[in-house]
């Protein structure tokens, strides 16, 4: 009896906007120039906000955080593909999309200034708090999407992860659950090629991360994560599929972390200048700006006005964040359970008396 091939698998690669700002017209999704301008503005705000956070951290006004520099096309493209009722489940590098969901910049600053009240999100922002243990958040995203499916809601959950997360157990458990129960979740893998210092080639022997989804019968694609249009198009397609009941999708957005892993890291220890310069020339922001300039809707003057407006917005947020009343020490106890238990009451009194 001859052997035969019973399954074949392919990995699709998607790109639309090249680094010179030129597009493949046949692949270009429908987005108005005014929307592209808004997306560009969001990318700039994200970049400047991130840069400000970095400076604040260096001045001792913020704690450790993970910069998003270089990830703007992914987070802005994804944000613009969402509907209001959809949810975002971030890991810890998603302040750009978190803000675009409605979370004020001052909340994000407050959180990274060591104050949990920054995480006290309003109903309707539809984003979960930052999740630091790698890949664990993906199961929450799947559970949340599962809840929406059971409630016959049309909401979709966007779950973010990095390349390193694909090595962790919960990644595999989440992908497996998502397809077994066919839930409306879209996994957005921000493959920035490094998990702190470990390059993706040492993270996995697989040639792509997208192919890991194939094992779970999840449609997947690898795409240029520095290409705003490709991200928008693929996320939108995945979300629409999920909304129609087609279940999960996996998007590997190939990008580069233009900053350190966190403010405590020094990436120059493990990445060459040449490599960073190469990727700086492929900055997701530059190519959108070039595209807009080609279409005569953007110029230096507008760029100057935008930068000023963004900095002003950030100034206001910094002021707000730095002028909140200090947190109450009782808060340490108050949110452990819905109601304070007798034993916590006693510990709280101990702190009050002797603290």
């Amino acid at each position, binding site marked *: 009896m001859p052997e035969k091939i019973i399954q074949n698998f392919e990995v699709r690669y998607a790109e639309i906007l090249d680094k010179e700002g030129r597009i493949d017209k046949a692949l270009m999704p429908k987005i108005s120039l005014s929307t592209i301008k808004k997306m560009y503005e969001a990318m700039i705000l994200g970049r400047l906000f991130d840069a400000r956070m970095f400076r604040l951290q260096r001045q001792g006004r913020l704690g450790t955080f993970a910069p998003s520099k270089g990830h703007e096309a992914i987070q802005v493209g994804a944000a613009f593909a969402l509907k209001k009722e959809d949810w975002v489940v971030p890991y810890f590098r998603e302040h750009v999309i978190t803000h675009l969901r409605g979370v004020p910049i001052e909340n994000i600053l407050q959180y990274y200034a060591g104050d*949990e009240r920054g995480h006290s999100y309003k109903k309707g922002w539809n984003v*979960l*708090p930052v999740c630091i243990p790698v890949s664990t958040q993906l199961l929450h995203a799947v559970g949340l999407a599962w*809840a929406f499916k*059971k409630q016959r809601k049309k909401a979709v959950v966007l779950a973010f992860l990095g390349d390193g997360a694909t090595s962790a157990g*919960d990644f595999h458990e989440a992908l497996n659950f998502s397809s077994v129960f066919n839930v409306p979740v879209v996994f957005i893998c921000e493959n920035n090629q490094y998990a702190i210092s470990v390059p993706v080639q040492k993270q996995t022997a697989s040639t792509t991360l997208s192919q890991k989804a194939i094992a779970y019968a999840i449609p997947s694609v690898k795409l240029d994560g520095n290409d705003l249009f490709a991200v928008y198009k693929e996320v939108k397609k995945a979300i629409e599929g999920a909304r129609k009941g087609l279940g999960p999708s996996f998007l590997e957005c190939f990008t580069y972390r233009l900053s350190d892993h966190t403010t405590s890291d020094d990436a120059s220890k493990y990445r060459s200048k040449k490599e960073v310069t190469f990727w700086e020339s492929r900055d997701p922001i530059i190519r959108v700006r070039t595209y807009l300039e080609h279409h005569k809707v953007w110029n230096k003057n507008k760029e100057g006005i935008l930068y000023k407006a963004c900095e002003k917005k950030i100034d206001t947020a910094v002021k707000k964040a730095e002028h909140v009343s200090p947190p109450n020490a009782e808060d340490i106890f108050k949110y452990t359970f819905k109601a304070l238990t007798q034993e916590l009451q006693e510990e709280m009194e101990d702190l009050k008396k002797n603290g």
Partner: protein
Amino acid sequence: MAKLTIIEAVNLALKQEMKKDKTVLVLGEDIGIDGGVFRATEGLLKKFGEERVIDTPLSESGIIGTSIGLALGGFKPVAEIQFDGFLYPALDQLISHAARFRTRSRGTLSCPLVVRAPYSGGIRALEHHSESMEALFRHIPGLKVVIPSTPYDTKGLLLSAIRDPDPVIFLEPKRIYRAIREDVPEKEYTLPLGKANIVHDGSDITVVSYGSSMHETKKAVAELASDFSIELLDLRTISPLDDETVVASVKKTGRCAIVHEGPRSCGVAAELISRINEKALLSLEAPIVRVTGFDTIMPLYKLEWNYLPTVERIKKGILQALSF
């Protein structure tokens, strides 16, 4: 009134609460058509369908992690972990997330879920099937830990656990799943989490236990009952831990023995002794005695009763505290 075992009381509580509250779901391994390996979910699939009685992939972190998402999304998942020793893959989800969402979000999010798991040894089982690691869970801020010892308590405590707004670990004493049969009312009733039960009054010594070990402890106490007046307490929950009831009792009796089968160091007895020392040291007439499992790996069944507190060992412990 029906006379039920502990496992039947679990089943009844689940059935009643699922009927009453449409947001309650049960999920886990083999809990559907098989009704769970101990049959706790027997008949639920037929009654409530696959949407609410869910056989999951074999994936403990997946079960608890998605339960967290379901809870955030408005459901009340009651997850079954098949055996105590299989809880560990889900520990990260419990410690890092289930227990923390309320704190992390300053009260804007919460995880009202229940994790049911059989615990304790003495059933001649394989390795990893006889663990009593309840103190591990007690050490996690943000989790409640409930351990019933009777069919009546099981129903009342499980209903409270499901209705609780925070995550609850519900450890079921598998050694006595079917050892006791007692009246369990059909009607709804709940027992408060964080309140110990005074099984019976006494004046010579306070004996404290919970869960599986209550069974042997009751026997030991009964055998000593003709010579001593023993106050027997069942903690029912170890988080919150009701030291108020224990301390009040010790103040009255002046002596105390604490029994559990989990490892001795940093166990529930150790914590209780600390609290008694803090609150009732001057009432003590003797050092408090611990009768516990050891700081060893739970042995396979040829030696398991050398590890577990036996009636004999408990009696000796009580007498030691009495004779000081």
